[in-house]
């Protein structure tokens, strides 16, 4: 069960989820959860590059911090300035139809889970 939960971020991070759950006008914007290693972060420009992937097939996901993670610490999350390359984080974000694309709503560092 735990393994299934751990795989959810991979499945959620892919376009397949978007296809399976295409939003209708009455639904809220699709949210995404990524879990990965911070590759690069720039608190001034509010950009975050996250390494995700499946096995040896790795991908870089580029995101932009939303207001909540730029200026103040959200309820129980981190500011973008609080993370650094090498940190393993869970990032909740939403996709906008126009640039910047993926907007970060919440970041949290995660402890390494065991199964």
């Amino acid at each position, binding site marked *: 069960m735990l393994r299934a939960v751990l795989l959810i971020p991979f499945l959620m991070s892919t376009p*397949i989820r978007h296809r399976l759950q295409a939003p209708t006008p009455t639904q809220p914007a699709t949210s995404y959860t990524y879990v990965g290693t911070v590759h690069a972060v720039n608190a001034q420009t509010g950009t975050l590059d996250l390494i995700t992937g499946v096995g040896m097939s790795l991908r870089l996901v580029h995101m932009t911090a939303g207001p909540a993670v730029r200026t103040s610490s959200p309820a129980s999350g981190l500011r973008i300035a609080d993370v650094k390359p090498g940190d393993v984080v869970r990032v909740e974000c939403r996709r906008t139809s126009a640039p910047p694309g993926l907007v970060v709503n919440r970041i949290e560092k995660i402890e390494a889970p065991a199964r």
Partner: protein
Amino acid sequence: MTVSSRWVAVLLSLLAPSCKKPVNPGDPLPGLTAEQLARFTRGKEVFDSVFTPHTGLGPLFNSTSCGECHEDPVVGGTGDEVEVHATAFKNGMCDPLVQEGGPVIQLHTTPALKKALGIDREPFPPSANGRASRTTPVVFARGLMDLVPDSAILAYADSEDRNHDGVHGRPNRSVDGRIGRFGRKAFVPTLAEFNAGAFVAEMGITNPVQPTEENIGGKPIPPGVDSTADPEINQEELDVTDDFVRFLAAPTPTKLDRNGRRGRDLFSKIGCTGCHFPTLRTGASPILALDRHEFAAYTDLLLHDMGQDLADICLGQAGPADFRTEPLIGLRAIQHFLHDGRAATVDQAIELHGGEASGARDRFKALAAEDRAAVVAFLKSL
């Protein structure tokens, strides 16, 4: 039951272990159900099927099928292909160079990509400061390795060398922080992920778990070069391939003679089993053939510093000199030894061990010639 029939039953039960049918390389796990065997067979077909650009191959790839590399002595075995991997290790951190195409350098391109960009392999990442050659491992018993609980791997770890034996194994972690176990650097946590990632990294075959192609040295794939719709295999094809690998058994070691048994004892006595743990045990599984099963693994699934002479790339938390203890399952099928195939014989492979393995290596080298031969005879039985 009469007294005589009871004696016959006792006699049969005593004889049963010695009559147990040996498992040959490539055989499925004993005890699979008919349905599981059918999936093993269907998965073997996908594993061995040859992809073309029309069916999704590339545009970058190392091989046209899983079975092209994993072929010797049977499907799922080893092969003579050698891959190139690259990463950058800077200030104690590992960059897998995803922005430049990722750590696996594909050595072939489809005709369409060659026509578009004039390249016949993926460009080597300019930021790399580590380059590695990687031979093809056998994939026997990987389903068993997949089910060794993380708690067992953590229990074997001794990163502080508390027992002062010079060996300080530690687990690697994946990009999302889970304990790794697959790959020469133990970077990948599960067999399913390794397989899904390998379809893309090795053949350019996208699938529902990894539905996007790799970039070309950091640049997007030129328009019209990869016209096959993603994912290029479906979930069922991915799942049965995964089951084929998952259900491949550990081959039964060949019967040891007196010399081989002495070699097995020496292998332990000189300290090789400090990392090459003879047996591992799986956790609970709904698949009875994998459920709480002890198997001869000869690995602890941990990283060990093997010395600067063997160092190549970093990956996750593994530094350039760190390697996962290689499982010795199916060793008798191997023709070239160590992660990059630099050793032509088992003796050479042992002599090239360094770092944490230096003590065991030196004790091996100090053995009399016939004792060294006995250790090698034991290893060649696996």
